[in-house]
């Protein structure tokens, strides 16, 4: 188990180091998120609907897009440098390869969300102060769900012609349950509702995460093995 985690970390570190050397993808994702948030501001009528009602949707659509951006670059690096073959003949287990990718993607998306959330609070004047901890919790849960399935699917589309487009088409149906859960919990948190009301949704998110992380771990070897 420790071996697995260590190997996963090796894979993740390599990916993240590559990422930070150029920083292009990260900066693009951050700017993209800021732009999406800005667009949402102009895409609504503030007199018709209260910001607080739309806020959860705005936040989560933005985060979903950011996650998609992150995933699109997941295997591209490998493909460009033909490093994937190198990884596969190495003594690294398939499982640690998946977990490494998952970890790297999660760090990437977490960074984008870490900047996106304050921007969101700023732009839409949303009171998150008192509910920050549970909010971060639900963001983490939903993001794990998105990225777990997304990392698996990245491996499926990597050699196809319209990889980015295909990834989105395949992935979006899978993002709906965590998205519904995340928006529901966020709405309750921002609305000052007691946490107990959101308990069912938290359970759904957790079940989804456990289910799909396990499934993806199980299935990932089939995407890279002969």
């Amino acid at each position: 188990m420790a071996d697995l985690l260590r190997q996963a970390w090796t894979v993740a570190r390599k990916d993240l180091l590559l990422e930070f050397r150029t920083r292009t993808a990260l900066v693009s994702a951050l700017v993209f998120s800021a732009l999406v948030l800005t667009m949402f501001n102009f895409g609504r009528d503030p007199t018709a609907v209260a910001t607080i009602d739309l806020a959860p949707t705005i936040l989560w659509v933005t985060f979903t897009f950011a996650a998609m951006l992150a995933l699109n670059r997941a295997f591209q690096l490998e493909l460009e440098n033909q490093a994937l073959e190198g990884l596969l003949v190495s003594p690294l287990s398939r499982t640690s390869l998946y977990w490494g990718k998952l970890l790297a993607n999660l760090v990437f998306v977490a960074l984008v969300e870490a900047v996106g959330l304050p921007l969101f609070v700023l732009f839409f004047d949303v009171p998150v102060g008192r509910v920050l901890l549970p909010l971060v919790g639900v963001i983490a849960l939903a993001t794990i769900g998105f990225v777990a399935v997304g990392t698996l699917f990245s491996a499926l589309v990597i050699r196809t012609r319209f990889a980015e487009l295909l990834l989105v088409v395949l992935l979006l149906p899978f993002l709906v349950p965590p998205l519904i859960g995340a928006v529901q919990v966020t709405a309750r948190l921002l609305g000052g509702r007691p946490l107990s009301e959101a308990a069912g949704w938290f359970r759904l998110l957790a079940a989804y995460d456990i289910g799909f992380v396990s499934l993806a771990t199980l299935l990932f070897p089939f995407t890279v093995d002969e």
Partner: protein
Amino acid sequence: MSLAHKGRRITLLGLVLLAGVYVRALAFTPLERFQGPAQKIFYLHVPAAWSAMLAMGLVGLCSILYLIVKDLRFDRFAAASAEVGTAFSLVMLTTGPIWAKPIWGTWWTWDARLTLTLFLFFLFIGYLLLRGAVVEPGLRARYSAVLGICGLVLLPFIHLSVYLFRTLHPQPIVLKPSSPSLPGSMLVTLLVSFAVFTLLYVGFVTQRYALALQREAQGREHA
């Protein structure tokens, strides 16, 4: 008799029997007092749903079996089932709103049933798109199997999340659709329709499977 021929025969029989279902449902099954003639859409919509679910279930099952045994026949069957499932999903997606409008007063509603229908359709389409994008048969089989299994696991989550979502936001309903206990004649029509739709599923899948075999053989000739 070749597989393709057998498939065509079964499909033809299915279509003829479908005409029979049409006649029985439209002319020989009593009208539902509160919902009127539109209720009869039920006799097509529900069996189509069954066929689509069956198709999805078999895609999932064959995907699992393929990954375990690596027998391409399972992959071929899964692909056939996915295409046939798409057709039945399309029937669901069209008859659903046509039924909803007179009964519920709106063309679309995000209730668990219709939403699941939509997702089933998306999953089938995604599956077929992925297959279209991967050329090498072995790779295609593996990738499709992974997607197929994920899709199957997704369905209960969709159902659960939509159900939880809906119970919080009840829709104003004009007329409630009829609940379980169906009078005898209606039940018979429904059951016969189920049987016919299942037969159509078998016929279609057989034809589609045979088509795949035919194309593979032709591919080998040209190679």
